[in-house]
């Protein structure tokens, strides 16, 4: 054994490091077990079956304080996913619009877009959430003087309420039809690409997909009895009833998350569009492609390769930032876990669950992104 050899020294270092890490972990675990024993806290996930005993203000899945901690945590997770999903969609739409606007030839539009990005990105999200929450709870009128936009949207300190179609089997049928249409659309696109690769002439894709996505759900809805009834929010007792309700906490979090992240997405989109060589557009023009075709066939595919990785990062950030819900009282996963932790003293287990959930979400999204990247990677000569 030669101690001067880099390989041998490398292994000695690594064994020492591993021993140090293992020693540290053992010390921490030993301390923790001792502390837990001293406080009379039982280690393990048995507490999940106990009665939670606290109410949750927004429950997408039926829940009562008599239910278990496990169920409460599931509600929290559902709330996290709901606000993240809505935030991601809204932030993407707003972000793309602002990002494209920043590159517009019109200096006024570009200037406004830049002002938006610089204003939103340079202020802590937490403060923005406080402001949105404050405006929604303090500045909106009390229930009796609620602001009503033609009865369709009602805004008061109790939150927002939207008119919504009355529950009817027809809507469910239409929803299923939409799913079927999406599957068919993918199948059609796949077939069209195969045809194009084989023969060189592609059947129309966009018109067919658009027709599928509109016609199929519409037909299903009509066949199922064409339900038209809309439920409007009405003041009854101390609050409005009917329609879809949105708590001020949820509204503040959704608005705050999406406007904040949109600022970052705008920069991602802008960088992506700028990354496409101007010669590509000139070449596409020389080939006689229309502006729409240029964007769709030449610019976008190249820009997307640059856009998607940082965009995924922004989606992950938004999902992680939704944990700021705890500061304004929206019952997301972290907030429910925090209550659980305070009530049961099972801090380690509760935090482990939260971290495991976020890690799973992060790894899943990262894996999906790697798949996308593999698919869109340039095939180089």
């Amino acid at each position, binding site marked *: 054994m030669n101690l001067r050899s*880099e390989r041998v020294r490398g292994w000695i270092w690594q064994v020492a490091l591993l021993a140090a890490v293992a020693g540290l972990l053992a010390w921490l675990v030993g301390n923790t077990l001792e*502390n837990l024993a001293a406080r009379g806290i039982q280690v393990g996930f048995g507490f999940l079956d106990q009665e939670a005993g606290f109410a949750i203000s927004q429950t997408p899945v039926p829940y009562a304080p008599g239910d278990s901690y496990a169920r409460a945590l599931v509600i929290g997770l559902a709330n996290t996913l709901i606000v993240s999903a809505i935030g991601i969609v809204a932030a993407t739409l707003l972000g793309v619009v602002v990002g494209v606007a920043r590159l517009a030839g019109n200096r*006024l539009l570009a200037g406004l877009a830049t002002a938006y990005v610089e*204003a939103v990105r340079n202020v802590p999200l937490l403060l923005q959430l406080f*402001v949105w929450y404050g405006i929604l709870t*303090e500045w909106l009128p009390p229930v009796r003087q609620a602001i009503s936009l033609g009865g369709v949207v009602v805004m008061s300190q109790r939150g927002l309420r939207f008119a919504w179609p009355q529950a009817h089997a027809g809507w469910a049928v239409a929803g299923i039809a939409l799913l079927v249409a999406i599957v068919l659309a993918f199948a059609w696109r796949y077939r069209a690409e195969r045809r194009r690769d084989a023969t060189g002439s592609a059947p129309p894709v966009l018109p067919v997909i658009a027709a599928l996505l509109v016609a199929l759900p519409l037909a299903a809805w009509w066949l199922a009895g064409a339900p038209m009834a809309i439920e409007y929010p009405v003041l009854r007792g101390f609050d409005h009833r009917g329609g879809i309700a949105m708590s001020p906490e949820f509204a503040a979090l959704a608005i705050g998350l999406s406007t904040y992240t949109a600022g970052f997405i705008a920069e991602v989109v802008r960088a992506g569009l*700028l990354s496409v060589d101007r010669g590509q557009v000139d070449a596409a023009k020389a080939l006689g492609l229309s502006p729409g075709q240029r964007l769709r066939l030449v610019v976008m595919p190249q820009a997307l390769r640059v856009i998607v990785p940082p965009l995924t990062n922004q989606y992950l950030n938004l999902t992680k930032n939704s*944990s700021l819900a*705890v500061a304004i009282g929206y019952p997301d996963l972290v907030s429910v876990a925090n209550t659980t932790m305070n009530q049961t003293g099972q*801090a380690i287990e509760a935090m482990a669950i939260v971290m495991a959930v976020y890690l799973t979400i992060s790894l899943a999204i990262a894996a999906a992104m790697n798949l996308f990247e593999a698919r869109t990677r340039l095939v180089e000569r």
Partner: protein
Amino acid sequence: MTTPAPASPLPRPDRVSSRSSRPPRAGLPARIRQAFFASRRDTVLTLALLALIATVAPGLLDWLVLDAVWGPQPVAACEAARGQGACWAVVWEKFRVMMFATYPFEEQWRPGLAIAVLIALPVLSAWPRMWNPALPGVWVIGSLLAFWLMGGGFGLAKVPASQWGGLPVTLMLTIYGIGLAFPLALLLALGRRSGLPVLRALSITWIEVVRGVPLITVLFMASVMFALFMPAGFTIDQLLRAQVAIIVFVAAYLAEVIRGGLQAVPKGQYEAARALGLPYWRMMGLVILPQALRVAIPPIVNSFIALFKDTSLVVVIAIFDFAYAVKKSVETDVVWKKYFLEALLFSMLVYWIGCYAMSRYSRWLEQRSAQVR
């Protein structure tokens, strides 16, 4: 915390060439026409946007400036202007609480001076002429001064860290969060790229686990679980725990930034250093890191911006940083409570100035390094 995009060290040749081939500048009227009325669609758009601005701006200007209550005025003045103008008097009324929170009132000149020191240190370091071996010495002296001012001793009355609050706390969490995370991040980045499997696995685990969870969970861990991990009877201050949590968190993000810089160093540099017979640490210290860190400086500044904003999350473990001090200063006062929005807007302005200045600086650095090449 946002992840900075990977650094791209080289200027894009196509944009440089397109800039140089731009036609000579036209006169002002032509430029205005080009900027705002280039086509019929642009004209319509410009007019529509101007109309929108004309409807929103006057009301906003009235509320923010013209009809607002400025200066140290009693709350009655704000009551009178309520609905028409902002109540900036709340900032005068609560200024000391916002800036210094629970710090003893008679001693507040000390955190005031500490703020000056804590701002002067990064501002000085931002100046490329200061990038010399004396800089770490300046930091040590400045930091000792700041901590002496805040904590006392040696002639000053002692103030325990549990009473610190306001802007100095935010600045400390940010500056020492990045500063102390940096050496750790350097090791993690090198570990992740090293050929030693155990080292690499440990580095990857740290980086990916931390980047996969929200900062809030790390802060909760520091706040709630730290006591469980330590031997019975061992306690450290809440503020220090938050600082440790931030360092652990930021190190993972910073490691990825540094790794981006390392990846930008051409392979030939490694090979040349190896061929010269340099051992690992001298190769890194003399050849690789100087090049890698130069590329990584702008994204490091971006991490600094992100952390400056993210320190506000210590609110959830009830540390009186600047954001929490501002929020509590109005929330706990029944008389001024109504003017929470003005107070929050003021704190937003403070954060905005800091972040905007840093982002301009980061862009300036990028352009500067592009020119040097």
